[in-house]
């Protein structure tokens, strides 16, 4: 009897992990399972866990369905955002680590500060800036320059919004990544005759790569599900997949279709992330070989 008891008793570590485990199951896994279950429910019904069909996926993969365009737009814009942000954030991250010195703290706060204001409010602020007779147009006219810039409600403006909104999510992991590069290594390389480019390519970049990669993944995942930028700044000049999911859950009264679209997005985004991670061999980058 007592031996049986001992067999089923959790170790102290496992027992301590139970609350977190329960929280993760309830807060993370349960909604995900519900969405997955809805994806296989009868279209336009609420028969979740009571019906099983591939009808939602069949309609999405039907050749006449153009929803693939929304997936393509979302992934394309997410990829562009990641590339642009990598180029934009790297010099800032470098500056925060090596150049700004005692001002780094202040600069960091300036980049964090917008996160305290709701994304919608910030994007509406940009609308007021770019709109006809708005801050930019009005100021140009006031200075006697030709106004009438037609910037808002275009795909380029959506990209601008995404780069602006997701900058901190790229910047901070990248800054941490660069902070992991020991100064001694760069000094040693320089003593051995390496040029600036070589030090950057052979030492800084590989050693900072975990941070850079995490930043890129984080931005990509967030940007692939972006919606407000295309709605507020882009005037819906492109339709993102998040918007299609929203329409399915609202106007179309079709939760199963919305769930199927969401599930496909999860599979694509996580699949791409895992693929990139596996190709890049994190172990080598992290130097644990």
């Amino acid at each position, binding site marked *: 009897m007592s031996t049986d008891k001992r067999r089923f008793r959790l170790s102290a570590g496992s027992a301590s992990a139970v609350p977190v485990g329960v929280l993760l199951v309830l807060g993370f896994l349960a909604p995900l399972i519900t969405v997955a279950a809805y994806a296989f429910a009868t279209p*336009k019904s*609420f028969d979740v866990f009571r019906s099983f069909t591939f009808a939602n996926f069949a309609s999405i993969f039907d050749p006449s*369905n*153009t*929803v693939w*365009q*929304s997936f393509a737009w979302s992934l394309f814009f997410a990829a562009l955002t990641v590339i642009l942000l990598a180029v934009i954030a790297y010099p800032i991250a470098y500056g925060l680590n090596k150049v700004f010195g005692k001002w780094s703290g202040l600069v960091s706060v300036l980049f964090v500060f917008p996160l305290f204001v709701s994304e919608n409010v910030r994007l*509406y602020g940009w*609308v*007021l800036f770019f*709109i*006809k*007779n*708005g801050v930019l147009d009005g100021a140009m006219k006031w200075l006697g320059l030709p106004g009438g810039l037609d910037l*808002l*409600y275009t795909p380029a403006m959506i990209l601008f919004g995404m780069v602006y909104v997701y900058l901190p999510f790229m910047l901070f992991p990248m800054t941490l990544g660069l902070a992991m590069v020991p100064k001694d290594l760069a000094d040693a390389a320089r003593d051995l005759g390496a040029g600036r480019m070589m030090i950057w390519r052979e030492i800084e970049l590989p050693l900072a790569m975990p941070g850079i990669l995490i930043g890129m993944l984080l931005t990509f995942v967030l940007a692939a599900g972006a919606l407000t930028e295309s*709605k*507020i700044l882009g*005037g*819906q*000049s492109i*339709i993102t997949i998040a918007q*299609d999911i929203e*329409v399915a*859950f*609202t*106007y*179309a*009264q*079709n*939760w199963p279709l919305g769930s199927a679209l969401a599930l496909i997005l999860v599979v694509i985004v996580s699949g791409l992330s895992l693929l990139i991670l596996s190709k890049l061999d994190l172990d080598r980058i992290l130097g644990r070989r």
Partner: protein
Amino acid sequence: MQNFSRRNVLQMMGAAALAGPMMSAGKAFAARENELNILCWEGYNSAQVLDPFRSDFSANIHAESLTNDPTMINRLRAGETNVWDLINVNNPWARKVMYPAGLIKPLPKEEFEPYFDSMMPAFKPPYKWAMSDDGSELLGMAQRFGPYSFVVNTDVVSRSMAEEQGWDLFNDPGLEGRYGILESDDWNVFNIFLIAGINPFIEHSDDDMKKFEETAVRVFKGAKLVGDIAAMNQALISGEIDLHMTGGTYSVSPARADGFTNLRAVTPLKGPIDGKGGVAWIEITSTVNNPQLSPLATEFLKYVQDPEVAHTVAFAEGTFNPVSQMGNKACFDLFTKDELDAIQWDSLEEEMDRSAEYDIVPDYDKALEIMTAAKR
């Protein structure tokens, strides 16, 4: 005397932590008489409307606002009938969908029908949209309403021209890139049909759907932007656009109240819905078929009939709208000249006459699918 070890104390604290929420959960079940949950269009969830009721009844009120009917109906269908007490949606849903599906329950007729007597003449009892299909049950109360077709900047497109041309304005290649579209997809389905010269509220042939598709592709392609009410009004005021599809008193009244009276909701003089070219909405507020319906639900419906509260509802934060209670002089007199101007009182009656009432499109799913694809 018992000695408590630290372990005992921790156990007791744990038990108390568990028991606390459970006790309050029990209280929540028992205390429905002081609790009211409202699922509504914005306005009814404002503090101006709710706070006096809260203090009068010492009630704990939770109101959630959404900006489209299908989402609210979905919430009830997904099993939230045991959460909500009142639902406030546009006219056809109560009698055509929610009552037949058992999502709402009728109101005591003898208690509530007399209120319709003091409303504007169009709402005289038995008011069609407040009644069940067979006319036997009263399913809800009417309050806010308004014509909802399109909005123009009269400095650029005159009211008379807009009324004359009606939906054909959106067929005019000269206005390409000069108009916006409100992101209100159920209404956009109606309006794309209307631009195509087709009555939205009938069963459609394949030819109709083909025409609908062509029109949807063209209209969305020619739009400068698709956005919410704030975006439409901002774009109209700044001059980014001169008109926008799907809009009316409801959407333009905040801009008019701010002094932009050159922006005006327009109802076409004629159109394909038995001669009518406009569509109007009337909100019906019903009691949800909640197994533990709060007694405050019916009290709230009576409360908003009061002239002063009705006036507050008309001018609650967000959008400003006429209310059926304006048929009562005591209520009408509370509206200032500017307020009447904001809700276009001068033409309200004729615009409502020129509008068909919001109805359900029989092949909505198919049309929405076509329109969603057209947007891409």
